[in-house]
């Protein structure tokens, strides 16, 4: 899957929680104060259903879920593809 398409889908999912479509890719999701107790479960189901991966015990690490970039990287690792995160130098 093209990295841009994947990030677009993740952004679309996250934007309804953050009430903002234009947030930074590296914005810390959990410091926004807008995420409620259901978000974790909804995020797990979203990445599993939309990207066909299984979130497992070993994946429980905040660095996998803390930002759009982090979620992108996590999904790519699970799917065995190269990282889709663009560093600022690549932009």
């Amino acid at each position, binding site marked *: 899957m093209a990295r841009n398409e994947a990030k677009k889908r993740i952004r679309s*999912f996250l934007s*309804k929680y953050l009430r903002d479509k234009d947030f930074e890719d590296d914005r810390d999701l959990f410091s926004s104060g807008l995420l*409620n*107790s259901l978000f*974790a479960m909804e995020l797990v*189901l*979203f990445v599993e*259903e939309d990207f066909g991966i299984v979130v497992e015990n070993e994946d429980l690490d905040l660095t996998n879920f803390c930002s759009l970039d982090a979620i992108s990287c996590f999904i790519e690792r699970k799917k065995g593809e190269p990282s889709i995160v663009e560093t600022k130098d690549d932009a």
Partner: protein
Amino acid sequence: MRTELTKKQEEAKKRFKDFVDRHVLPHASRRDLEESTGREAIDRLAKAGYLAPTLPKERGGKGMGILTFGLLCEEMGRGSASMLSLLTVQDMVAQGILKWGSSKQRARWLPSMTEGRVLAGFALTEPNVGSDAKSVQATATLLDESYVLRGEKKWISWAQIADLFLVVVQCAGKPSAFLLERETEGFSTEPVHGLLGFRSAMLAHLRLDDCRIPANDILGRVGFGLSHVGGTALDCGRYSVAWGSVGLAQACLEACIHYSAEREQGGSHLREYQLVQKMIADMFANISAARMLCYRAGYLKEAGRPESVMETCVAKYFASSAAYQAATDAVQIHGAAGCGGDSPVQRYFRDAKIMEIIEGTSQMHQLLIANHAHQVTPS
């Protein structure tokens, strides 16, 4: 989304109804009075394959569909809310282990849970912590290759007899989940009596006095005990309670239909009186609506859709509210006859109030749903 049951689901619902009519309903009031459920009743549920039945067959479950499990919960809720809670809690803990357990934990516990050899308890609530679940005060401290658990848990269903507890405690300052066996040194329970409802659900308070458990008995990872492990369990619990509430409301409706057709006052049967008709109409409509919400939640859960989490919240909130209203009106229609100890209606009323509190109070659900409404509603 189809709104009709498949032939297989219809047949399953009939089997569940038959089971409840034969083995649960005749004993529900007595068990409520005695505040106890005998082992033989639990063994019968296990033999029928009703404990954690949605687990995959390779894990010892029946591979039961989520919607079909909902139908089971509805029928069980119709028979006995206390017995429903056994299905609820066993499923909650089993799903938590299935999703977040290590391969060793799954192999060790899941087949035993489906066979009824191991009964589970879900230990989150504490004397000072209810809705504010992230603030649990019980702790787990890492010591050598063990965790030492200390604290109290309160109002834990089936804790008088459960063998295994999924406990959520603070570990390194973060909510974390552990599996704690009843036989652990330092673990004790105190039965709860005189409850408003769910009287035969064998509740107990727990004391964890320096319970030392192997480090591998953590479920998931430190810091994910509430968000993910507890979240998975509570999502399952809400779903089961939503369906069970539909069943409880259905029991109220059936009792009212029967009573209002038999009881005469002023030369007419109660069913002739419009104010009684209004209560029954509202009961019927609300049950239908609650059932549709449960179908939708089940359909989305089976598809693995993220929207299923919120839809399950909506279903639980609406169905438990509908059940309480149905039970209130059922007592009203029955009058004094609905208040007597030998009337099942007064049990429905007491149990329905509990449905509005467990697996997240109605008020907590209102906050979640309002927040969701702001997220998704165009403005």
